[in-house]
Structure formats: structure tokens, C-alpha cells
């Protein structure tokens, strides 16, 4: 691929479907790829199937049809190996309120690390990423929403996974903190980490992502660079593209 992004695929989603009730698909035959160092954003209205698709890739939900390959491992046959290569930050995710921030980072680091020194390395990286300083020694229940989100984001990227799946990564953050997070995501992508994002914030998506996938009513309707899509639909920005694509179905 151009734009300095590797051709190596970190994620290959192949006809992924999820049926909750007979004949009712939350997500149907969704296919897309995410390359090494690429930031791919899934955008769509509420109930479009973004979270269902993300949850299937994260091995939380079982796919009804199709498969997804994460760093060479199938979500159907090797879910534990997939989980070793991803981190998932759900929308409105919480942390254990009775834990201190630093203990939460240690706890999560130990789940992802292969040994003690690696866990310490992850924790230290998480401590630096979240920039919470001495507040890390306080219990999470005393954190503001923004502080908690920064801690969770640090948790999601401290282990430098092959693919970080972030659902609404900057929700609840003020403008300054949101900008910092976006810059951080771009920096980490530049270092080779891949991201699968989901967001309602079109400005954020346009700024941060390399490619965009527009999903509505369970179907992936469009994929491409923000610039390509605005040109294709004769739109001023991604918001207009989104409106045109979504209202078409």
C-alpha cells in the first residue's frame, strides 16, 4: 500500500455475519482488511452492527458465518491466540473501582505478559502513557471520567498489541485530552501498531484514520480513504459522505 503503510495484513475479515434471531442479522457478510501500521475506522449509525463486528473480532461473540484472521490466527479456531494479539477497549468501559490506578495497570499487564519483567515493562509504559502521575496511587473510584478513559486507553496500548480495537476511544474526554489521544494513536501507528476504531465523531475519524468503512443495517457499504470517498460522492467532508451512503440503504 502507499502512504507508508505496510502490505502485511494484521486483520482479514472475511464475510463475517452474526444472526441473533432467525433471519435477523446484526452484521451480514462484512469483509475488510487492516494492514500493519494502519488505522481503520468503522463508522455507522446506532444499531448498524459496528459493535457486533468488533465483538466478533475480539472473540467475545461467536460468528454465525465467516471468519476473521488476526495476526495469522482464526477467531473461530484459535481465539486465545487472537486475544494474545489484540486489546479491546469497549465504549463506556470501566475499570475495577476499588483498585488503585497503578494496580489496575499491573493486573492487566500480568494478563498480557509472558513473564514478570515483561509485565513490569508494560506497567511502566502504561504509567507513562496515561500521564496520571501520583493519581495512579489513588483508587479508580476517585477518578474523573476523563482520567478513567486515559487509564483504560493506556491499558489498551501499553502491551503494544498487533491490533488495538478501540470503540469510541475519545468519548468522555475534553478537547485537549482527545487531541492528545489522537496524536498518540497516530504516533503508535507510525511505529507499526494497527488500530481498528469505531466512532461517531466524523472529525476525529477524518483526522486520525487512514481508511474508513461505512456500515449500516449490518452491511459494510463503503471502504476507502476519507479523501477518496469525499471525491467519489462529491461531498465536502466525511459527514456528507456518511449521510449520502447511509440514506441510500
Amino acid at each position, binding site marked *: 500500500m502507499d502512504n507508508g503503510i505496510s502490505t502485511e495484513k494484521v486483520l482479514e475479515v472475511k464475510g463475517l455475519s452474526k444472526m*441473533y434471531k432467525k433471519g435477523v442479522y446484526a*452484521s451480514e457478510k462484512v469483509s475488510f482488511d487492516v494492514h500493519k501500521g494502519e488505522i481503520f475506522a468503522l463508522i455507522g449509525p446506532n444499531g448498524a452492527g459496528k459493535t457486533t463486528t468488533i465483538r466478533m473480532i*475480539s472473540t467475545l461473540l461467536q460468528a454465525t458465518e465467516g471468519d476473521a484472521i488476526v495476526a495469522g490466527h482464526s477467531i473461530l479456531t484459535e481465539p486465545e491466540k487472537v486475544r494474545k494479539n*489484540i486489546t*479491546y477497549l469497549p465504549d463506556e468501559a470501566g*475499570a475495577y473501582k476499588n483498585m488503585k490506578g497503578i494496580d489496575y495497570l499491573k493486573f*492487566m499487564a500480568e494478563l498480557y505478559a509472558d513473564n514478570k519483567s515483561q509485565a513490569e515493562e508494560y506497567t511502566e509504559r502504561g504509567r507513562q502513557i496515561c500521564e496520571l502521575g501520583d493519581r495512579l496511587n489513588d483508587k479508580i473510584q476517585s477518578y474523573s471520567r476523563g482520567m478513567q478513559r486515559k487509564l483504560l486507553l493506556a491499558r489498551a496500548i501499553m502491551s503494544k498489541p498487533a491490533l488495538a480495537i478501540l470503540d469510541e476511544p475519545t468519548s468522555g474526554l475534553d478537547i485537549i485530552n482527545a487531541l492528545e489521544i489522537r496524536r498518540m494513536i497516530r504516533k503508535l501507528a507510525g511505529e507499526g501498531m494497527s488500530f481498528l476504531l469505531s466512532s461517531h465523531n466524523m472529525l476525529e475519524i477524518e483526522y486520525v484514520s487512514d481508511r474508513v468503512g461505512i456500515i449500516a443495517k*449490518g452491511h459494510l457499504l463503503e471502504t476507502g480513504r476519507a479523501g477518496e470517498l469525499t471525491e467519489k460522492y462529491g461531498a465536502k467532508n466525511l459527514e456528507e459522505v456518511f449521510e449520502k451512503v447511509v440514506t441510500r440503504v
Partner: protein
Amino acid sequence: MRFMTLFKKELKEMLNLQNILIMVIMVVVLSMAGQGMSQAMEEGTEAMMEVNLCDLDDTDFSRNVVKFMTANLAKEEGSVNSVTLESDDYAKELKRLGVKNVLIIPKGFTDSVNNNETAEVRFVQKMTSLSAMGNQSTGSQIAVQYLSVAVKDVVYNVKQASGKLSQAEISFLDKPLKVSETTIVGSKSDNISSTLVLQMCSAQGMLVPMLMYILIIMSTNMMVNAVSTEKIDKTLETLLSSPISRLSVITAKMLAAAVVAAAQAAAYMFGMHNMMDSMLSSGGDGEYSQVLENLGLTLNAGQYILIGLQMFISILIVLSISLVLGILAQDVKSAQTLTMPVMAGAMVPFMLSMFLDINSLSPVLRYVVYAIPFTHSFCSSANVMFGNNTVFYGGLIYQVIFLIACLAFALRIFMSDRIFTMSLGVKKTKDKTPAE
């Protein structure tokens, strides 16, 4: 107006599904307990009016006394069932005769009466339970009272016919009988009143069900909170997407809760052991303790372990049920409501075991109550003490099977998508789209 608006809002919030369910369950439980108690009282009263009597003296006088006693009891719709004892092994004899008590007129009874000396009779009673209503027929008062009246009648008639009563005879008639009591528990017996034994054991009989109930409530809350908090605080998705298997997550949760529950069960058993030791050593220089030991009503280390084991299995059942209930929770309020089925399931056997001997209930009611797995733990100490081994071990096997079924169900839910899609309330589930 404003006050009433506020009052209505508060009332509506407080009179929630949970409180209404508690009220309904309490009514059902108390009604069931009332029916059981009424049945036990009726059976107890009937048993008291049917006196099993063994006349070892077998003189004209004693036969006459029995005749008078039979006539007096018949007026109250009672009867005297004459039995023959073949040995002094009362436990064996009562088992052979299939009766729970017997009043014995010993040899020399007539001689004592003729000498105007208070005559001794023996009342032998078999104890089968520690519950308040389980030993309704316990006590010798009715049988001895009728015998005493019969003795007075016969003596009075005989003496009056032969002339005026002497002062010694009048004194004798004031207190013609002295009762010695023997209590049997299983195959063991001791010369003590069963009423006194029941009083000594009542603390123990009440304590185990109370401890069991507390443990069930605490374990339910512990596990429902552990799972529902993960779901409500949205930490579950993060945890399950980390490189750890769901089986490990569920095992860690169950094991941690089981360790806490086992520690609680062990601590309570140890505390109970100390409490019983202190209670029994405080009266009669250890005499009570000796009597209870003779009757097999004290628990040894092995029996404490058996009771603890049954408690532990009940707790594991509670934990596996609570795990599923915790998954259903959507918020703190629904998590509280979800503890209701376990609390209700525990409340029924708890209340019944406090007042009734469940083994003496009608077969249908007994099997219904025994189908609740916690019942076996509530009755464990009584079953161990009274040697109801079949009921105890049968209950233990049933509990293990129930536990395996509960664990399999919990595991199935936890390993599937249902952990994210299941919730309390049909309407809410329908309305909620699992996908975004």
C-alpha cells in the same frame, strides 16, 4: 398535595418487585410452616393420649390400676396399649415394638403402694429430632398423670371400702408416684428427661440452620455482586477479551468465592464447637456434657467435618446459581432482585427445620422440601446426631448431582454469547438490540 405526590413516588419506589416477592414468599412459607406445625401438634397430642404401658409388676392391684387408667383415657378418646418388654435394652425394645415411648410399672410397685411409700415408675422416651415441634410427644406428664389418677382411684376405693383412711394413706395419696425417665437417641440411652435433653440441645439445633442461612445469603450476594459488577461496570468485556480463557475466569471466581465460603463454614463450625463446649461445661460440672455424649448428641470431629462438607456443597450450589443470576443483572437494583430466588429457596427449609422434624412430614411435602438442595444442610446436624445416615448420605449425593447440573448450566451460559445478551425481563431483552 405536594406531600402526597412525593409520598406516592417514594411508596412506588419502595414497594418494588423484590419487596412484593418477599411478602408473598413469607406468606407461603409461614402458611406451610403453620400447616406442618398443626400436623405435628395434632400427631403429638394423639401420641400423648395413646399410652404404651408395660406392667412388669403384674399384680391384681397393678392390673386394676391399668383398667382404671384405660377407662379414664377412653373418656378423652385415648387408649392404653399394653406391651411386653423382653429385656432392659430399651432402645432395642422400643424399636422392636415400633413405639416412641413406654411407661413401665416396675416389679415391687404394689408393695410400695401397700407400704404407703411413693411408688416409682419409669417413662422411656425416644428422641428423633432437635426441632421445636419435632418432639411434641416428648415428656411423661400425660401418661404419668393418668397413671397417678388411676392409682389414687384404686387406692381410694380399696381403702375407703375397708374403712377410714389413715394419715399415712392420705399423705401417700397426695403424691403416689415418682417418675424416673430414660431418653433414647438412636441405639443409645441415658436416665434423663427428654425435655431436659431437648432444652440442652435446642441451641445446637437452632444454630446450624441459622449459620447455614447466613452463609447462603452472604455467598449469594458475594457471587451476584462479583459477576453483576463486572457487567454493570463494563469490565467483563475487557476481561474476556484478554488472553485468558473463560473457563479460567469462571474457575477463578468460583474458587475465590469457595475459599471464602469454606473459611466461613470452618470458622462457624469452630465457633459452634467452642460455644457448645462452653455451654455444656457450665452446668452440673460437666454432667450435661456427659449425658449428651452418652446419648450421642455431641458431635465429634468427623461429624463436624461431615456437616461442614454438606454446608460447603450447599454454598457451591449457591455460588453456581448466583453466577447465572449475576449474568442476568443489568443494574444494581436488578442485581439485588436477582438474589431473591436463592433467598426464597433457603428460607423455606430454614423456617421448617427450625420448627419441624422434616423427616416426620407427609411423604409428598417431605420430598418437596427435600428437593430444595439446601434442606439437607439445614437438617445435617440433626441427621448426623440421630443417625439418619440414609437421609444424610442420600442428601449429600443429591446435592452433588444438583451441584454438577448447576455448574454445567453456569458454564454453558458463561462460555456462550448469552453472557452478553441475557438480561432480566423479557420486555427489556426484546427491546434491547445487542448490536450497535
